[in-house]
């Protein structure tokens, strides 16, 4: 055997030779027993290893961990409620499965529902209920959205989503859920989600009041509400009546529920019977890890979707500026592609394309400030994340491969 290479020397001292193939490991051990040069090198590596450990040890943190029981109790107390939505959808016979998971902080960005009541200048400013025609989106005062007790089940992006005023929506083929097994079946906005949605802050009152779109039913605080608290439905006792949130009201509210993941099963590209996605587009996104389209790395606007008849979809939303385009993963295993696009309203859209065999768990955590839609086709994933309602994200997903 030739001399032991440096990596193997380190593995030997790290006790990692057992993770090598047995034959190789035995050969290394034997060689070190008989070769004086390698034995000397081993001692040099031993000193280097000791020095490196010593240096890292200079920055050792003090670790004071909560007890496991405390941690477990916290997890139980904040566990997202199981949603019966999937059972309902199964009964309706959807071909696509839409799984809704609630994350912490689903109503207001920082997870505090009772912040719908905002103290300002000594006044309690009520949250103005939504306008007629759309159920209220006002959250209950003391609701714990992520708690076990009393949490509402949220049906997001279902076929009953009410179009938002100011947007044009195409007729949704899949609104009759029981008979049309389309994917998603959420309404597809004609502008693909570029109409800005006011983020729900609910915690500050700007001078002149926060702007809002009447029909979006987003949380609004207006001067009128401040000046006439009676309009907000204050009871005779002076306490404010805050309407409760129901599943239907949330679905219609078009609030950008945060931390929500919606999973959509995409039809196989080989399926001749695949249904068109609601709105006329075929939803598909097949990852090409090797034939990645060069779109300039950073920047650039994709105006055309290249459809060459092979069913190759676009990796990006056409007509939207591309800010970043990068490969994921290192070494010999590509994990996929990450694209960032900037919607016209300035919102950031992250798109991840993961090939078969790569689980979405490799991605950074979603966080509590965005929603996510995952398109799954036979183990390949296309995942969209943005501060948009889930149905908007589903619409953007559809645009990755519009009807040519």
């Amino acid at each position, binding site marked *: 055997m030739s001399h032991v290479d440096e990596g193997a020397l380190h593995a030997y001292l790290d006790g990692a030779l057992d993770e090598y193939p047995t034959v*190789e490991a035995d050969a290394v051990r034997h060689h070190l027993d008989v070769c004086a040069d390698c034995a000397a090198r081993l001692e040099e590596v031993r000193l280097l290893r000791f020095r490196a450990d010593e240096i890292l040890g200079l920055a050792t943190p003090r*670790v004071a*961990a909560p007890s496991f029981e405390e941690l477990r109790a916290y997890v139980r107390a904040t*566990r997202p409620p199981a949603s019966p939505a999937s059972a309902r959808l199964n009964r309706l016979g959807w071909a696509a499965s839409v799984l809704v998971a609630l994350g912490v902080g689903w109503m207001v960005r920082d997870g505090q529902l009772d912040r719908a009541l905002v103290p300002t200048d000594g006044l309690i400013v009520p949250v103005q209920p939504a306008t007629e025609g759309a159920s209220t989106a006002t959250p209950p005062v003391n609701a714990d959205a992520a708690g076990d007790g009393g949490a509402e089940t949220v049906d997001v992006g279902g076929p009953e989503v009410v179009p938002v005023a100011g947007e044009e929506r195409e007729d949704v083929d899949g609104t009759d859920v029981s008979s049309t097994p389309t994917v998603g079946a959420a309404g597809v906005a004609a502008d693909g989600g570029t109409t800005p949605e006011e983020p729900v802050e609910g915690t500050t009152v700007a001078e002149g009041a926060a702007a809002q779109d009447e029909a979006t039913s987003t949380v609004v605080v207006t001067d009128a509400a401040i000046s006439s608290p009676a309009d907000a439905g204050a009871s005779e006792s002076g306490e404010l009546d805050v309407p409760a949130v129901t599943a239907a009201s949330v679905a219609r509210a078009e609030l950008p529920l945060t931390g929500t993941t919606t999973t959509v099963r995409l039809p196989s590209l080989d399926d001749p019977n695949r249904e068109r996605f609601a709105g006329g587009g075929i939803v598909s996104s097949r990852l090409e890890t090797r034939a990645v389209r060069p779109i300039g790395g950073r920047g650039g606007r994709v105006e055309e979707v290249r459809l060459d008849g092979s069913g190759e979809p676009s990796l990006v939303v056409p007509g939207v500026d591309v800010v970043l385009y990068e490969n994921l993963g290192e070494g010999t295993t590509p994990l996929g592609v990450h694209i960032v696009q900037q919607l016209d309203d300035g919102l950031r859209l992250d798109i991840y394309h993961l090939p078969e065999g790569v689980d979405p768990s490799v991605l950074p955590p979603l966080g509590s400030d965005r929603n996510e839609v995952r398109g799954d086709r036979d183990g390949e994933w296309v995942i969209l994340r943005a501060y948009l309602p889930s149905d908007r994200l589903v619409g953007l997903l559809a645009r990755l491969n519009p009807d040519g």
Partner: protein
Amino acid sequence: MSIDWNDVYRTTFPDLVRFLHRKVWDEERARDLAQEAFVRALRHEPKKPRPWLFQVAANLARDEARTVLRRKKHLVLLKTEVERREESLPDPGSDLEEKERWQGVRRALDALSEKDREALLLWDAGQSYTEIAKELGLAVGAVGTTLARARKRLASAYEQGEEANVARR
């Protein structure tokens, strides 16, 4: 086979904090992120907790770095000159020597390539070669070589930093 999460927590939490600390350089924040990783693990219940935890922790640290960067930019716009000057004064209660040591280690780690640094931190946090290989997309046999390079560079960079400090004094 069910997982004894209490045991996983006991054996992995300190390593996770150690790993995260070398990324965020803040003890408290490292502990918070380690807790967050465990909260997610207890919800997600991965079959292989330890590598899963380290992967989530790495992602959390990366997100943290981006947040800190955004926050710093924001704060720069907001702070007054007075506040900036006040912040630059050392906190009389802080352990200056400890902070200086951390700075030295941090500078040395920054001299490594990202992969080498990650391999070294994962090893230092108790991950096996197999786990490190999987995390970084390497062959198991390449982990030793990566660690060899990382340790050499770390030692060299740290010594250079110390020499520069001595020369300044």
